[in-house]
């Protein structure tokens, strides 16, 4: 395994911490390049999850006994770690969810239900994942609000020149991804936030693809809501978080009722707990939260700068190799400064599913399809794309194997 001098990351040592990577697929060492869909978990995270269930498992908040105290400490400690991870000023406005999708649905239901009226406008972009589109469609259908969209340019970058037209006095919310899952574009989130605020709108950012790769600082961005998922950054599936500005979160009505979220309950009515618990009905995913905190610890132990440096090496190497494949069209920004190491592409004469099957036969895991961005696929004029997406354990050798696999696609289909 080659380690590039430019990165301070010891990739060989990192890879040894991911048990799943050490296997053969189709008779060759697995090359896992489907990190945009879900990443793998390091042993430290799996150990933390196991340790919770083996040693500390109990329900949180209500118990007086030792195990409940430990579970509560683990759960609330994880909330503090998430706040630190996002540089959020106040852990109390971090709500645990199943992931980005649930976080956005929470805002659409609780905030949207209380604040959106007929004629209001919600501004989205054409590059949104269905998880940052459908909840707003549903809200618009319920309330009579209108959805408006920021388009992209030929390189898959948001057209900021449209903002003057799209943002109006009726705009209540602007919601967009930090990094596009289908293009790899890193959006100018601070600038977008400033423009939205100037128009009097709130800002929600879908950070699902950003959290594993780029430094997230909600105070520097200035946004009002930030959502992300654990499973794309080394934590288990089924845990994620929503951060919201405290004064907004304090005003949010509950969106699900049940245990954990109440203050005083009568048969006919109840009063509710303050945030965050008001928004966390039912037994939470305590093990998941503990493991998410372990993933944050692990990532910060590796070092955000080292991760970004290594991924930048992968990005530049991958772009060069893929551009060398005849008949391959790489989507997303031409400049590596504007994207992360996600490689979405189309190949002349070869459908993405055929590309995926041939690469799978070479032990290479990539994704083919619409990537939950059907409107974006139509915008790009393709039925589907093939996407290779990297994380910190990938190597330039693996991208070479990807390029070799694509040469075989060419041999079969050209």
């Amino acid at each position, binding site marked *: 395994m080659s380690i590039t001098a430019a990165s301070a990351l010891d990739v060989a040592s990192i890879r040894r911490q991911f048990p799943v990577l050490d296997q053969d697929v*189709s*008779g060759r060492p697995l090359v896992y390049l489907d990190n945009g869909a879900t990443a793998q978990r390091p042993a430290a995270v799996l150990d933390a999850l196991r340790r919770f269930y083996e040693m500390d498992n109990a329900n949180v908040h209500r118990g007086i006994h030792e195990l409940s105290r430990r579970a509560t400490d683990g759960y609330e400690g994880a909330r503090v770690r998430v706040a630190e991870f996002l540089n959020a000023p106040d852990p109390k406005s971090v709500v645990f969810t199943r992931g980005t999708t649930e976080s956005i649905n929470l805002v659409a239901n609780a905030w949207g239900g209380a604040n959106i009226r007929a004629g209001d406008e919600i501004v989205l972009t054409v590059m949104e994942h269905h998880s940052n589109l459908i909840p707003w469609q549903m809200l618009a259908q319920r309330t009579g609000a209108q959805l408006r969209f920021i388009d992209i340019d030929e390189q898959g970058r948001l057209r900021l020149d449209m903002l003057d037209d799209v943002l109006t006095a009726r705009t209540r919310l602007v919601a967009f991804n930090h990094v596009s899952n289908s293009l790899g574009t890193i959006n100018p989130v601070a600038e977008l936030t400033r423009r939205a605020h100037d128009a009097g709108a709130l800002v929600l950012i879908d950070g699902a693809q950003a959290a594993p790769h780029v430094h997230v600082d909600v105070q520097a961005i200035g946004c009002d809501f930030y959502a992300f998922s654990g499973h794309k950054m080394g934590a288990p599936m089924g845990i994620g978080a929503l951060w919201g500005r405290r004064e907004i979160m304090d005003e949010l009505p509950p969106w699900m009722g049940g245990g954990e979220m109440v203050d005083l309950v009568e048969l006919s009515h109840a009063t509710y707990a303050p945030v965050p618990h008001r928004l966390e009905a039912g037994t939470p995913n305590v093990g998941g939260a503990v493991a998410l905190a372990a993933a944050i610890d692990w990532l910060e132990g590796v070092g955000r700068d080292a991760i970004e440096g290594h991924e930048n090496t992968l990005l530049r190497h991958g772009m060069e190799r893929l551009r060398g494949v005849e008949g391959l069209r790489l989507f997303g920004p031409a400049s590596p400064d504007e994207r992360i190491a996600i490689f979405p592409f189309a190949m002349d*004469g*070869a*459908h*993405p*599913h*055929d590309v995926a*099957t*041939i690469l799978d*036969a*070479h032990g290479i895991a990539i994704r*083919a*399809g*619409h990537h939950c961005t*059907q409107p974006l*696929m139509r915008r790009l004029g393709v*039925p*589907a794309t093939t996407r290779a997406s990297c994380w910190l354990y990938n190597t330039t050798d693996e991208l070479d194997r990807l390029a070799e696999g694509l040469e*075989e696609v060419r*041999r*079969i*289909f050209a």
Partner: protein
Amino acid sequence: MSIDRSTPDLGGLYQEVILDHYKRPRNRGEVDPHDADVHLRNPTCGDEIRLQLRIEDGVVTDIAFTGDGCSISQASSSMMTDLVKGRPAEEGLALARRFTEMMHGVDEAAKDKQLGQARVLQGVAKFPARVKCALLSWEAYQEALKQADR
């Protein structure tokens, strides 16, 4: 064409005749007038087919398809239309059942000469993620017969 034989069955999947039907599909287009017009999509992968056919005295006298999809779905559509065109609709239905059995790994079905050229798709059965691609056009055919019956 050289296919690396060390990779699992890729050669069996992407045979010359399949690639030929993919690159030069038969019966691509529309049927006018038609007795059935069916549009099927596979939401997980985006493959889609629009199938039109005409039936006269119980015989499929014309059939054609349009749509987008992978090599397997397009080749299967091309072969299916070739196979059922000019045949009694009922015979085509029996072939649809036979083809479906072949996709589910039934050996006798794969040996059934009635399936003609479509037998080359038997290799797809070894790629479970791709079986639905091969079946889409046959599902559209069965749906079209139901529609024509109404």
